[in-house]
């Protein structure tokens, strides 16, 4: 059962990738070399090798050195960059989950908190990340707690947290409220405490709502970290590689794509981790709710 589902999903994944590759190469054949206008607006991308390198030249670029004359192949640079960002994303995701679930519990416990806090949470997500990044860095730099020194990478993780906590808080809140009234009445008839009701009824009932929220949170933390690396100039991560390689796009157009794919792999890894938890947590649930 499970093996069949995994086989089906992975074959669909391969088909999806193959279709994108086919579309890309097809456009390179039929598309205008120097771009084109549609109803007077230049909208069609240039199909030449500088703007749209062949898929195989992107892939073969992985096997060549990062800079001319260097010994390090670009795949190892991209891999270590993606791994660096993965660690930051994991920290951001972990903090975001803690804060998001904590806020959801608080909001479900006290209606006043929910009414007062929820609009601010929604508003917080309208603040542009680019504007926030330098602020977090400068606040972090001023922070002194005993011997604790704010590391530069932590700012990037915090921005990941900033994007991750919101969907997790909202999803968990909905999930906690999803426990049926009859089940709550049953717990009341057992004179169950608030804590017992939370852990034995509300959280288990919330799992089907929390899993998709955690998936959103995981990809949010990746985006937060990558954008923060770019806007704060943090070295070592995949975001920084994208910005560096993009500058070389005219001379070495395939190079930037190696880093872009690295970022995509990073996102897939993160949501894969959550999907794994989904399979584990939902294994004994009725099938209808496991979607």
């Amino acid at each position, binding site marked *: 059962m499970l093996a069949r589902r995994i086989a089906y999903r992975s074959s669909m994944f391969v088909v999806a990738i193959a279709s994108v590759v086919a579309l890309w190469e097809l456009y390179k054949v039929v598309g205008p070399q120097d771009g084109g206008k549609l109803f007077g607006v230049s909208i069609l991308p240039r199909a030449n090798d500088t703007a749209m390198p062949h898929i195989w030249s992107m892939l073969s670029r992985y096997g060549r050195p990062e800079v001319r004359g260097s010994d390090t192949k670009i795949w190892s640079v991209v891999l270590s960059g993606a791994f660096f960002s993965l660690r930051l994303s994991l920290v951001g995701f972990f903090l975001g989950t803690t804060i998001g679930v904590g806020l959801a519990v608080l909001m479900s416990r006290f209606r006043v908190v929910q009414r007062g806090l929820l609009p601010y949470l929604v508003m917080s997500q309208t603040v542009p990340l680019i504007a926030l990044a330098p602020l977090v860095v400068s606040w972090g730099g001023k922070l002194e707690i005993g011997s604790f020194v704010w590391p530069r990478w932590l700012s990037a993780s915090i921005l990941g947290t900033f994007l991750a906590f919101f969907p997790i808080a909202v999803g968990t809140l909905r999930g906690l409220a999803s426990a049926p009234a009859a*089940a709550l009445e049953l717990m*009341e008839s*057992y004179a169950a405490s608030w804590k017992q009701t939370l852990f034995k009824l509300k959280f288990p009932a919330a799992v089907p709502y929390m899993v998709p929220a955690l998936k959103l949170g995981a990809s949010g933390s990746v985006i937060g970290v990558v954008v923060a690396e770019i806007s704060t100039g943090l070295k070592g991560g995949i975001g920084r590689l994208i910005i560096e390689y993009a500058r070389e796009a005219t001379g070495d157009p395939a190079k930037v794509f190696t880093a872009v794919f690295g970022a995509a792999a990073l996102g897939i890894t993160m949501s894969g981790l959550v999907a794994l938890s989904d399979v584990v947590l939902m294994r*004994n649930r009725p099938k209808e709710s496991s979607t």
Partner: protein
Amino acid sequence: MSALEVLAASKIFNQGTTKQVDALVDVSLTVQPGEFVSLIGPSGCGKSTLLRLIANLLEPTTGSVSVNKKTAAQARLDQDYGMAFQQAGLFDWRTVSKNIELPLELKGWEKSRRETRAKEMLELVKLPEFADLYPWQLSGGMQQRIAIARALASHPPLLLMDEPFGALDEMTREYMQGELLRICGETSTTVVFVTHSIPEAVYLSNRVVVMSPRPGRITKVIEVGLGATRNEDTRAAEGFFKGITAVREALRGTHAEHAAANAVRGVEDR
């Protein structure tokens, strides 16, 4: 000594506002240990409200409720009663056995004692082979039997049931009625049972309490003379039909009073 005593209890929702509802007015009811009492009446007659007053899920506006010589609140804290609803309300994420253990877990019983009791309860409801399945893998009737096992797991002297068989088909329903009588007989549990069905009330009960709406109150208490042992033959016995007629007439009485208000809506004649 009575198992349950309701004294001049009233429940008024939204008191003093334009949305005031007199759900129950001046209701008194005494139930003896081991007795099976059904509450029957049209929708809005307050039978579920009365059950919730007994369970201390609602507080009476006036009057008092005592269970086992204790206040209803204390009885709830001591888990002196078990409860079953129309929906079995089993937790999807717990195995059948773990569902039965839930009230014991909340009481702080240790694991081995819980497991032994869950096993006993599964024997009692004749589903011992289903211990490790999940509720959604069982039929509706089986789920309801598990819910009864859960309600009785801590051996409470009193069982409160709110239309527990309302969602079951007729055949399963009759089977469940027989099972319920057997289980309660074996455990000498007192039962207060809310239902819409006249035959069900008569078949199960020592006494049928007929209620009427607007305001919710008890209009008649009918003794069912069917004796202690009931089986499939009971359904063909003269006393059974006499009981049904008596309850129906009592309900008609409430119907005549409220004919204009369309009061019997919700009472099924099955």
